[in-house]
Every structure is written in structure tokens, then in C-alpha cells.
């Protein structure tokens, strides 16, 4: 296993900047997720690490080894493809053995390592099957075993769960994460699914339009988004635009004056997470406004409301259904008060 460094890596197709000036260091054993909508450059970045796409500029290093100019077959990365890309003409055993055969290992060593890899993904019993005889989840595990058996310096996962059904997806992502921890694999995963990303990552890179929007842990991205894109992409949030009118005082365009915790400079946008807003009991809250419930949806563990404030702003609010019956408290049309603390306000430039 080694660390990975991308130094000012760019990829330009014609006049299209697929990835621009991407600089990142991935620590040994770290699980890093590249997250963003389709077309944001995350897959291009992964393919540059794997060696399928040649960077237009910048260097890529594995540990201290500069691999920028190495073809993919000399890089020793293990890539799990989105569609698994198993060799349809080879058995499960031969699929997993392929990388070892390319490395010209001895027959006995290949046999031993393939069996180990298959045991790791719990597929020993299916070694002689052909890929088309396997379910999607099993194919996915073969792809994983095939990538791991070569003891890659970096494990690369390209939307590895997107072809699985919802239930299996959760199971497999836990498995991948546990395996990654146990083997101490430096891992880069690409996904557009924020829940998936948040659940496995040590650290995330949010990308948009070929650029890094923010690098950080789940908490950092959620609680201190660097910009509107990150704030809206990670979780849900309410945006109020306006300007600072004094120390720790924000005034929205609709006329609300809101106390905020930090006193930063020329912020134009205030973000409030739905679960930080309280309904009903506004005693002593710094920010408290009157409004009307416009929409209620009961989701089991939580209930979501849309509240129209007197100022005209609509606010999404999420309440935990921890006390039986609190759902009944507010129905569409109820006149209520909403409240939140100054530290619930995220200011965004």
C-alpha cells in the first residue's frame, strides 16, 4: 500500500476542462471518496490514477514513485469497474487468477492466492462458475477479489455499488469498508450517491465542473460547507440570501433579521439545516419567527414540514418523532413559531 499524490493534475478534452488543477494527497490506508454529480470530473480523475486517461498537465505519484507516464499495466492499481467488467469467457477462478498469471507467478502460488482472495469475499464455493451464472452481488465480489488478489498499491472503486439493488448496496458497502480497514487499503472511490459516500469515507472530495469544491470529513462538509454547491449537495438545507448588517447580524432580502454565531465578512448566503429548526416552543430563542404550516410528510422516524414565514420565505423543517403524538401537534394551516440558534446558521460567501 502506498500514499497517492496528485499535483496540479488537469485533463482537457478539446476546449473542455474535464478536470482542472486537481491537487490532493491521499494517505496510506485512507478511504477517500470523490463525490459529485455526473460530469463533474470524478471518473476522469479516477481513470487518470488508474492510467487509462493521460493527464494534460500535472504529476501523479504513488508513494515516491512518479507514475504519470506509466501505462496502466505497470501501475499496480486494483480497479473495480462500475459494470464489474468480468471476463465473460473465464471462470471465476480464472478471472481472479488473471492478474497473477500476468505477473507470471508459479502455479501453486496462484492457486493459493486465488483461493485466499475468494475466501475473503466468501465465494470459494463458486470458483468454477462462469460470470454469467452469478448474481449481480456475486459478480461484484468477484471483481473485488480480482482487484485485491494482485495486492495493488491502491484500490480504485468506480461506482461499485450502482448496479446493485438498494438492500444489497448497503450490505456490500459495509463489507467493502470492513475489508478496506482490515487490509489497510489505500482506497479511492467514485460515487454520485452522497449517502454512500458519507457512510464509507474517511475523507471526501466534493467535485463540480472539474474542480474541487471542498475536501474534508463528513462533519466538516456538513457543518461547514465551503460554498452553496457543497451545502446543497451534502444533505438538505434552507438557503436565505441577504447580507451582514452588523456584527453577528444578518438581514435577508425578505427582511428577516437573524442572529448568527460567527461574524465573518461579506457573506451573502445563510444556510440552515432542516433538523436545526425547532417548531412550536420558541422560548428564549435568539431567532424566532411566525409562520404557517404548508406541508407535512410523516416519514416514520422523522416528520418533514414546510413552513411559510410571514416574510414569504419557505423553510424546510425536520422533526424527530421521539415523543409519541408530536406529529399530531401541527397540521397544514397551523399557525406556529419556528426558532433556531445562532450557531445553526452557516454563512456562505
Amino acid at each position, binding site marked *: 500500500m502506498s500514499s497517492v499524490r496528485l499535483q496540479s493534475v488537469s485533463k482537457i478534452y478539446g476546449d473542455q476542462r474535464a478536470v482542472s488543477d486537481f491537487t490532493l494527497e491521499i494517505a496510506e490506508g485512507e478511504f477517500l471518496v470523490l463525490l459529485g454529480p455526473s460530469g463533474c470530473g470524478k471518473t476522469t480523475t479516477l481513470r487518470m490514477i*488508474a*492510467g*487509462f486517461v493521460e493527464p494534460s498537465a500535472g504529476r501523479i505519484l504513488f508513494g515516491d514513485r512518479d507514475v504519470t507516464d506509466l*501505462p*496502466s*499495466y*505497470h501501475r*499496480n*492499481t*486494483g*480497479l473495480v*469497474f*462500475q*459494470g464489474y*467488467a*468480468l*471476463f*465473460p*469467457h473465464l471462470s471465476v477462478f480464472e478471472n481472479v487468477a*488473471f*492478474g497473477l498469471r*500476468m*505477473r507470471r507467478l508459479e502455479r501453486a502460488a496462484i492457486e493459493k492466492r486465488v483461493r485466499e482472495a475468494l475466501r475473503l469475499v466468501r465465494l470459494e464455493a463458486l470458483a468454477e462458475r462462469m460470470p454469467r451464472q452469478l448474481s449481480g452481488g456475486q459478480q461484484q465480489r468477484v471483481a473485488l477479489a*480480482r*482487484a485485491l488478489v*494482485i495486492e495493488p498499491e491502491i484500490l480504485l472503486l468506480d461506482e461499485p455499488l450502482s448496479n446493485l439493488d438498494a438492500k444489497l448496496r448497503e450490505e456490500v458497502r459495509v463489507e467493502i469498508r470492513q475489508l478496506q480497514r482490515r487490509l489497510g487499503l489505500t482506497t479511492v472511490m467514485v460515487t454520485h450517491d452522497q449517502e454512500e459516500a458519507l457512510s464509507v469515507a474517511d475523507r471526501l472530495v466534493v467535485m463540480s465542473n472539474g474542480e474541487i469544491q471542498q475536501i474534508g470529513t463528513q462533519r466538516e462538509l456538513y457543518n461547514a460547507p465551503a460554498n452553496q454547491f457543497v451545502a446543497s449537495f451534502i444533505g438538505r438545507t434552507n438557503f436565505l440570501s441577504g447580507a451582514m448588517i452588523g456584527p453577528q447580524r444578518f438581514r435577508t432580502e425578505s427582511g428577516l433579521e437573524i442572529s448568527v454565531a460567527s461574524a465573518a465578512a461579506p457573506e451573502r448566503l445563510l444556510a440552515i439545516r432542516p433538523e436545526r429548526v425547532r417548531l412550536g416552543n420558541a422560548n428564549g430563542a435568539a431567532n424566532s419567527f411566525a409562520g404557517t404550516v404548508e406541508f407535512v410528510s410523516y416519514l416514520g422516524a422523522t416528520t418533514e414540514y414546510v413552513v411559510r414565514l410571514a416574510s414569504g420565505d419557505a423553510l424546510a423543517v425536520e422533526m424527530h418523532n421521539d415523543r409519541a403524538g408530536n406529529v399530531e401537534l401541527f397540521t397544514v394551516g397551523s399557525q406556529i413559531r419556528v426558532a433556531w440558534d445562532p450557531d445553526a446558521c452557516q454563512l456562505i460567501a
Partner: protein
Amino acid sequence: MAGAAAVALVLRRRWPRYALRAATATCFAVMLLPIFFVCWLSFFKNEILSFPPEGYTLRWFTSLWLQPQFADGFVTSLEVALLAMLGGLAVGIPASLALVRSELPMRETLNTLLLSPLVVPGIVIGTSLYFFLIDVEIATELPLTGSMAGLVFGHVLVTIPWTVRLIAANLIGIDRAIEEAAMNLGADRLRTLLRVTLPVIRPGVVAAALFSFVVSFGNLELSLFLVSPGETTLPIAILQYLEWKIDPTIAAVSLIQIAIISAAMVGTNRFVRLSQVV
């Protein structure tokens, strides 16, 4: 009365369907009747073709092997077809890879060029190849006209459109990611080709091989110009025989030829559904 009206109504409603069926049946009949008659004739007892037959016999099949021009022609045709098949693959496989996998400029033009032997009438290709080979022979003093090499070269030319179409169609359907997977696992381009790409497109390659064989085996127009003096291919032998005589011998030869070609077609169809490519 009411019954007749009902029938008329059904007919009025369904006539398009019946018309389609009738047209289909006619087309099939037009295509299959000659083959049917050839097969039937080959068992007629009477030497001069006439209906109804005086009786049935297998003697045309046995006498066939006593006529050297048919046996020789069969062997030559077989040799040429096998060599043309190999030649067709030698061109078709790399050409398909270039057309489907590379980012060559002018790929469309190349594709058209490779398919062009389909458009030019065989007799024209035959004539022009003959003159071309004479010119080359004069320039290089290589004995090309009337050589096996020249004959095979001509046949390779007409197999190319088929090999390219069949193999390229197969290649287009293959997920490129499996080739990337091979490279990711340490296989360089050559080993990826040998260990992954070719095994995966084997159905297309086998189909191309069988189809080339069929196209070459039945070819008359090119062979007429390119065959060496004294040599003969099966279609030429048939033509020459027909110039003198029409008797069930020809039907017997044709039956054998039809059998071989059908076997190759059915074999091909097992690997690639021909209706999707041809």
C-alpha cells in the same frame, strides 16, 4: 345468408394479414423452388431431363467421382476456400479492431473501402484483377497470372467485406471495460488482445471464417479469370460441363455443393445470428 355476410366481414377485416402471408409464401417459393428442383432432378433416372421422371437412381452421384474434372475442381475449390478464409481473417481481424477500437481519422472512409468489393460486380473485379496481375507480372516478372496466389488473392478480396462486417459487429457489442480490466491487471496491449479480446470475439471470428469459406467456395466470376490453365474449381467445372450437356450429373454436383454451403451457414448461425449482420 347471414353466414356469408360474416365470412365477408372477416375477410374484409383480415385481408391485409392474408395478403402479407401470400406474398411471403410467394417469395419463399421463388427462392426455394430452384433448389428444390435441383435436389429432385439429381435423382432422376432419365438422362434427358423430362417430366415426369421415368424412375429414380443414385447413379449420377456415383458416376461423379469417375469424372476427374469434378473431383479436381472440388479439391481446388476447397484449397482456395480454406486459404481465402485464412487471408480474409488476416485482413478482417486487424481491420475490425482498427475500425471499432482505434481513433483513426477517416474510419468511415476505411469502412466504406473495405465493404466496396460487395458493390462492384464480381465479373468486373475478375477482369480488372486479371489485367492488374498481368501488369504486375510484367513489371516484377513474378508469375502471378493463372497462379494459385493470384486466385487466392482475388478470393480474399471478396471475403473481406464479410469478415469485417461480422467481426466488427461482434466487437461493437463487447464492453470496452473488460479490455481495460485486463490492462489494469497487468496485461499489455498484445496480451490483452490475445487473452481477452480475441477469445471474447471468437463467435464473430468463427462466423467470419465460415462465411468466407462459403463465399469463396461458390465463387465463379473471379475464378474464371484467375484460375491457371488446366486447373479448375468446382463452379467452373459445372459451367464447362453445362456447355456440352444437361443431365442430372449437374444437379448431383450442385446438391453436394448446396449441402456443403448449407452446413457452413448453419454452423455460422450457431455462433452469430446471420440475420443480424447480413
